[in-house]
């Protein structure tokens, strides 16, 4: 069980939105994390690489802000086994590369621009994720 946290989740969502808008206003870029990371991994060490590295470094450092504000690091619970993490991670990398985006790129940036591609992509990955969780928890797992 996890607690239902509508207020904190909405607040966090608005911060994600503000950061997404800021990245477009300042650097003219889509805040798709998979796209930023993918470019970070494969582009040459130039200006285009540097802003990606700085953005990702900021994300990795964000728990320290939480530590400063709340006095403790955020806690996460990982229910999946290492094998499922590896298989799931690998499929995530393959899928987001072929599908040109993830939850942030398609789900937030794309839908906000009313991109038909992003709406189709988001509906697709939410459905397959839902079916996958249903199968692993209620059909094969249980």
């Amino acid at each position, binding site marked *: 069980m996890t607690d239902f946290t509508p207020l904190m989740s909405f*607040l966090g969502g608005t911060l*994600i939105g503000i950061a997404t808008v800021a990245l477009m206003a300042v650097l003219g870029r889509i805040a798709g994390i998979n796209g930023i990371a993918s470019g970070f991994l494969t582009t040459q060490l130039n200006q285009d690489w540097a802003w990606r590295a700085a953005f990702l470094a*900021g994300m990795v450092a964000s728990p320290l802000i939480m530590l400063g504000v709340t006095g403790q690091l955020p806690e*996460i619970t990982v229910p999946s086994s290492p094998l499922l993490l590896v298989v799931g*991670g690998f499929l995530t990398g393959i899928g987001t*590369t072929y599908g040109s985006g*993830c939850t942030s790129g398609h789900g937030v940036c794309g839908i906000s621009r009313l991109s038909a591609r992003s709406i189709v992509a988001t509906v697709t990955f939410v459905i397959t*994720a839902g079916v996958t969780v249903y199968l692993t928890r209620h059909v094969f797992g249980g």
Partner: protein
Amino acid sequence: MKLLSAFAIGLLFGCGILISGMGDPAKVLNFFDVAGTWDPSLAFVMGGALLVTAIGYRLVFRMHTPLLAQGFTLPTTTDLDAKLIGGSAVFGIGWGLSGFCPGGLVPVLGLGMEPVLTAGAIVAGILTARWMITLGHRQQPAKA
């Protein structure tokens, strides 16, 4: 200045992820577990992010250029093709197995070994897919 603002925006994005619960795989998987321990919180993350971004983007696109760049870099593809749908379907399966999406994963990389393991697998997946796409282009020069 560019790098400093990119870092600051990354910090803000990461805090949003952490506060919202998107970085916690238990919460993400429960969002999808409608038939079991359902936790609808993440719908509120999407709601908040979309509300701000939909309005904010409209205001930003009234500017001629971004503050620190030559222009806006936006996707130009409009095809609803098999690559988009198949890729997204595969991503959803991966997300449902691990509970980590790329945006949720990066802010929690420093919090344990499981996120690092998953990130390694995602990187392997990205590089494999890019290699397969390049290979596909090379094998079909006539179509290109």
